[in-house]
Structure formats: C-alpha cells, structure tokens
C-alpha cells in the first residue's frame, strides 16, 4: 500500500529523515514511536506531499508519488492540533473533502451524517468548532480526515493534547473503529502506551532512522538496543560481558536466557526481575526511594560500591521503607541481552 524507499529529508545539512525504508500493508495500523525531534512528523509530511524529499521516494499502491502535489495524493492527515477550519461549522469541516472532490450536496450531507454517527457526535453538524471540547474536536478532525475516503489515513499525535482518561478511552475507540472500517493507518506518537494500544506494528525512530520495528509485544519483550529500552522506560540498562548463560555486570554475575548473543553488549533487567531478599544475601543495596504506582511499588535501590542504581517492582505488602538495607537477586527470565 505505502512504501518509503530510502526517504531522506535534510534541514540545513542535518538529516531529519535518514534513508528510511518503511512499508505499510493494506488494512494495517502502523504506529511510529519516537521522542520529539526524531523525524516522525516529517515522515508523515513527506507521505502527504507537504514536505519534498531530498532523496529517495514514496510509493502509494506501487506508484511513485514524486512530483504529485498534496491535493492529488488521496491520503488523509489528521493534524496534531486538529486544524479545524474556524470559519466553518462541524458539518462544513467534515464536508470539506467530499465537496472539493465534487460530491453533490446530497452526497455531502449523507456522508457528514454517516461520519458524525461513526465518531459518536450524531447531530453535531451545526455546531461551531470553537465551541467544541478537545475530545469533540478530535472526533470532528477524524471525521473530516475520513470523509473523502482516503486510501491511507495518517494521524499526527492523534491524542496528544487530551487528558489522560479521555486519551485511554479514545485509543480503544480508534482501534475498534479502524478494525471495523479496515482503514490503513500510519500514526505517529511519542507515547508508548498509545502506540502499543493502537498499532498492529510499532516502528521506533531515533534521529531520523528506524531503530526497531515489530509487533507491540515483540518490541516490549525484546527492545533492540539500549536507546529503545530506555525510551520504553526501562532504567536498568548496563554494559556487560556475556559469556554462556551468564553476564558479567557491575551488579555482579546475572543469569541470561539460553541462546543470548555473546560478547560485550548492554543488558536490560526488567524491574520485575529484580527480587528483594534478606539483607546479607545477593547484592547488598540500600533503598533510596519508593514510588507508589498503583499496581505495584517502584523501589529505587542504591547498590554498595559504585554500581549504577537499580529499579525493582514489588507488591505493596513486601515493599521496604526508604533507608532499609536489602539484598537483591536476579531472575534470568527478565534479563534481556540487547543488540
């Protein structure tokens, strides 16, 4: 459906997109995840035809889009802050695409009604866009982007400005909606929760390059490198020497899963794999801080010597107080040798 071949964009000598290869299959929902400045919005803009490529090309349905202006690409783009047309009402916004493409008034009206129903705002057509709440604006923007039946729908930080509970509800709605409509979607976000909830496939970007791609669980289970691991929120990452079933780290010898790559590489220990035991056993640590996280308590540990701090997850009942001395052992199943 969509493929980028060595797509490159430079701003003043700096490559914002650096020879990116990416494909999106029909009916697939792909989410590009990355910190701000990683080039993910630029990626969307090149596909939409709003940003010319310096090298490489974009293909839609196998056709090279070089030189095709934005208004002839038939892709939809939902902007970060929606960009609803302020001088038009809700119906005017949703009908914009069909109208430009020459739909009759009747067709426009039917399409507006259908889409407002779909996004859960039936009968809102006459309302002014200025009077809409953030969540409603987001729905109207989605309806507007879907109205001309784009072959590819792109979302730029679709839920970025909404508050947390609304975001969590909408992400489920979107997922369900795209599944029902069979829409091909390319979304970008900096929020891993959003990406994992929305996507069939996640693409992690860093400095204009793709750092890793895979299904949400693949990426979560096996981050490709230290950057991806840290971006996903894992802090227990150290350099280690892996030999056989053990890794030599500043925290001592850690068991690693069988078949892990060998040699000097970063190693990740998931907080769940850091087990607290009686003081005197295993690695000696002092509890630096504890943070209540709802389902568990994140415990920050300072090991003796100059090893980097560790984070452990434990249930509230077992969580030690700050200042307590504890021992630490490691569970090999939660240790990941990174690339």
């Amino acid at each position, binding site marked *: 459906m969509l493929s980028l071949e060595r797509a490159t964009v430079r701003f003043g000598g700096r490559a914002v997109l650096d020879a990116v290869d990416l494909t999106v299959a029909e009916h697939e929902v792909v989410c590009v995840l990355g910190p701000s400045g990683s080039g993910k919005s630029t990626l969307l803009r090149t596909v*939409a*035809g709003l940003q010319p490529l310096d090298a490489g090309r974009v293909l839609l349905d196998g056709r090279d889009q070089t030189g095709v202006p934005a*208004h002839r690409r038939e*892709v*939809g783009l939902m902007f970060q802050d929606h*960009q609803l047309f302020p001088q038009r009402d809700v119906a005017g916004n949703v009908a914009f695409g069909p109208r*430009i493409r020459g739909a009759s008034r009747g067709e426009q009206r039917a399409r507006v009604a259908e889409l407002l129903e779909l996004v859960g705002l039936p009968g809102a057509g006459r309302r002014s866009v200025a009077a809409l709440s953030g969540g409603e604006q987001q729905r109207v923007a989605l309806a507007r982007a879907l109205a001309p039946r784009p072959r590819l729908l792109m979302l730029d930080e679709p839920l970025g400005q909404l508050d947390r509970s609304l975001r969590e509800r909408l992400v489920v709605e979107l997922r369900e909606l795209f599944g029902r409509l069979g829409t091909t979607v390319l979304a970008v976000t900096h929020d891993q929760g959003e990406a994992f909830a929305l996507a069939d496939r996640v693409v992690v970007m860093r400095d204009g390059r793709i750092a890793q791609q895979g299904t949400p669980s693949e990426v979560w289970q096996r981050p490709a490198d230290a950057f991806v691991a840290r971006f996903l929120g894992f802090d227990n990452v150290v350099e280690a020497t892996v030999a056989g079933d053990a890794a030599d780290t500043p925290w001592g010898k850690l068991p690693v899963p069988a078949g892990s790559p060998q040699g000097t590489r970063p190693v990740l220990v998931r907080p769940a794999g850091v087990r607290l035991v009686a003081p005197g056993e295993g690695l000696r640590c002092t509890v630096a801080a504890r943070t209540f996280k709802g389902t568990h308590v994140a415990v920050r540990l300072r090991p003796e010597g100059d090893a980097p701090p560790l984070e452990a997850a434990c249930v509230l009942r077992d969580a030690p107080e700050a200042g307590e001395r504890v021992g630490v052992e490691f569970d090999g199943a939660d240790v990941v040798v990174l690339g």
Partner: protein
Amino acid sequence: MDLARTEVAARRRAGAARLGLVAGPVAFFAVFFAYPVAAIVARGLKDGDGWHLGRITEVAASADVRHVLWFTTWQALASTALTLLIALPAAYVFARLDFPGKQVLRAVVTVPFVLPTVVVGTAFLALVGRGGLLDDLWGVRLDTTVWAILLAHVFFNYAVVVRTVGGLWAQLDPRQEEAARMLGASPFRAWRRVTLPALAPAVAAAALMVFLFTFTSFGVVQILGGPTFATLEVEIYRQTSQLFDLGTAAVLTLVQFAAVAAILAVHAATVRRRETALRLVDAAATARRPRGGGQWALLGGVLLTVPVLILLPLAVLVQRSFGDGGFGYYRALTREDGGTFLVPPIDAVGTSLTYALAATGIAVLIGGLAAAALARRDAGRLVRGFDALLMLPLGVSAVTVGFGFLIALDEPPLDLRSSWVLVPLAQALVGVPFVVRTMLPVLRAVDGRLREAAAVLGASPWRVWREVDLPLVRRALLVAAGFAFAVSLGEFGATVFIARPDNPTLPVAVARLLGRPGDMNYGQAMALSTILMIVCAVALLVLERLRTDRSGEF
C-alpha cells in the same frame, strides 16, 4: 538524479509563484512612484550639459533651507513629544479600564486620523484662527504661533498612539505583572519592570509614525503656518508652484527622502522587535472597572481631553459652516461661481468619491498582492526589503510625486496627463502602505497548517486560497479598503497638482476656497470641510464595526 530534479523543479515553481505576486506591485511602484520622483529630481539637478550635483551642497548650505529643515525637525519632535504625553495615558485607559461608552469613545478618537489634513487645518483655523471661537470669546489667536500647528498635530496623531500602544497593551497578559507582584515588586515597579519593557517597542513604533507624519506634514502647516512657518513639504510646494525653482525643490525632496528613509529603517527595526517574543492574550479579558484614585483620575483626564481636543475643533468647524445659523454657505456650494472653479464646488463631492473609489480599487489590488507575497513564510530577504520600500510613499514628498506625475507621465507610451486616472493612481500610492500594514499581520497569522489541512483534503493551491485564506482575511480586506478610501479621499499634496481645474477633489476645493478672501469663501470652505468630515467619519464608523483585531499598526 531524476527525482531530485523534480523536487528542485517544484521548489522553483514556488519561487516563480512568489515572483509573480511581487511583479505587479514592483512594476506599479517603479512606473508610478520611482520614475516620476526620479524624473523630477533629475529635472531639478540637470540641464543641457549634465548633472549639477553642486546644487545639492549649495542649496543645503543656504540659510533659508537650514531654517526650514530646523523648523521641520523641531516641530515634529515637539509634536511627537506632546502627542505621547497626552495619548499614552489614554492608551492605558482604553487598554486596561472598562467603562460605559468605551466603544463609542474609541471610535471618536479615531475619527481625526482618517480626516483629511485640510479638514484638520480648517477646523483648527475655525477654533484658534482669525475670527475663530477663541478670538470671538477672549481675543486669543494662536494661528500666528506654532501652537496651532502642534495642537493640530496632536489632534491628528492621538489615535496613532492610542491604537498602536493601547492595542498591544490590551493584549499583554496581566498575569505577568501579577507574577512580578508575587515576587515582591510594588505596583509601579511591576509596571516599570514588566509592562514598560514589553510596551517600549510599540511606543517607539508609534512615536516614529507620529514623527514621520508630522515631519512630512503639508495640509495642516499650509493652512495654519501662514507665511512664518514652513515644513520641508510646504517649502517644496512653494518652490515648485510659486517660485518655479525646481533645483531647490529637488534638493529639498532629496533631503526629505533621506530623513524619511532613516525614520523608516528605525521603524522597521522596532516593528520586527515587537513581533517577537511577546505572549499575547485576548484583549477583551484584560480590562477591569477602574479602582482607586489614580485610575479614576486617568479616566477623568481622558474623558476631559477627548471633548476638548477632538470634539471641540470639529464642533466649531460645523458651527462655522452654518454661518449665521442658516444653510447659506451650503447653498452657495451648489452655485457656479465662475471664479474659483469652473463648476459648482459641490461637484467636488462626486469627483472625490469617484476618484477615491478608483484609488481604493488600485490600492487594494496592489497592496493585496504585495501583502500576499510578503506573508509567505519562504519570503526571502529581497521580498522583505520590498516591505520597507512600500512604506516610502508615506514619507516621500507628495508634492514631488504629484509634480513628477505631471512631467513624467505626459508622453507616450504613458501619456496620462489628460486622463482622469492620474489622480486615483497618485492617491493609491498613499493607500497601498495602509493596505499592506492591515493585511500583512492577518495573512501572517493564518496558520500554515490550515492550508496544509485543506491541501491534504484535496484542495488545489487556488482552492486553498479561496477556501482558507479568503474567508479569514475578508474582514481585514474590508478594513484595508476603508483605510485606503479615507486616505485617498483626504490626499492633498499630490492631488493639488494633478487634479484638473474643472474637476477638483474636496480637499483641493477647500484649500482653494481658503486661499481667497471674504466671508463667503471662508464659510464655503467650512461647509465643504464639514461634508468631507462626514464622509470620512461614516467610512470610519463602518470600519469600526468590521474591525476585530486591534493590534494592527494604525
């Protein structure tokens, strides 16, 4: 690589589009501004055997010219200082205080700015001149002193300061001052440390505009200055039309040109500073009911100043136009008097309106194209330089432009001397800067991503302009047209040269009537000025209703 070449071609097309937008305004200014001005300067400094650049130093060194230059400068400085002194408190009152009748009062203070200078001069003549109100009451006459000129300049430019400074002031977030208060600053200290620095560029920009307008003042000084006081512009007029000394006039034009270019350069720099780095909020949310003696005193001061400074001169003008209480002077306007004009003076109303409408059309077209080119985010340095050039007609001697039209546009391929379109063309030159200044901030404020949103939804570039830009700038376009109309209607310096004797515009007719002795002519001038004032005031009131964005420059 092929692909890269297509992209380059796309960029080149964008460049060509930009060039296309700029080409029209550039050609217009080249033919109807640069060429006539250059022609008349050349006429003054050149004769059969070459250039006489020695004339420049010779004239510039003469005592008379130095005297005129000195007077022009100091009266402009004094006018600017006086205007700031009186108008800055008003800017505060309009920005931060909420009181009944504020909208009406705001419209009232703006009236003078769109009034033709000739009307302003006439109104002050009726107030402080021979046989004026003060003369009648207490035997006080100011028209022989410089005070009449200074007061008229304050009257005229009050709105510039109130609008430019007050507009920004109203949009400054009051919470910034509150933050300073929470950090321990007294109210005055908070104002001085937080608000004043934010306002300073706007104050500077307003002061420069006032200085520019008063430095090039013509109509007001022509009427109130008598034989004693002359600005450069008045002197250029005298040298050109009465002494036929084109050489001196050319040198004076160059002197004024240099001064104005310097002022505009400083203005451009302050405006650029203003555009950056300020957090603005909705103006409607920052005004409060006055509290405490200080605020009530300021409000009282403004409520007193406006009637005395602005309404009184206009009221006296209207009163004088009725002479002994009848419509005699107005009736006289409809009679053919054969002397001053070849037509009844009242015909000037129709002529003026026709010319002003044509000039507005030209100004909106040229100014709109220029603003569209300047607003593009990819506008290069050359285009931005053009922005500053567009302001030049505001400062270059209108008299020179007018006379330049006469001598430059009188032969093929451009023989317009006998064409009526000459007047609207000259008037449009002064209107264009206003159109650009009004449209540009609005066009720049249109979020580029709105256009992108439309493009992604399938709208071609032309469709994007029609569907996104036009609805958003329609209001600004109307406001710009209104300004251009008012300015064209009141244009005097250039029109006085090129309006044909049988087709005078209102300001020209007023000036001619004033130039003749006798109560009848004086009264008719007052009556005609009143008509002109009403036309301008109506145009302004329509504008006030349309105007929403008050952070523009005028």
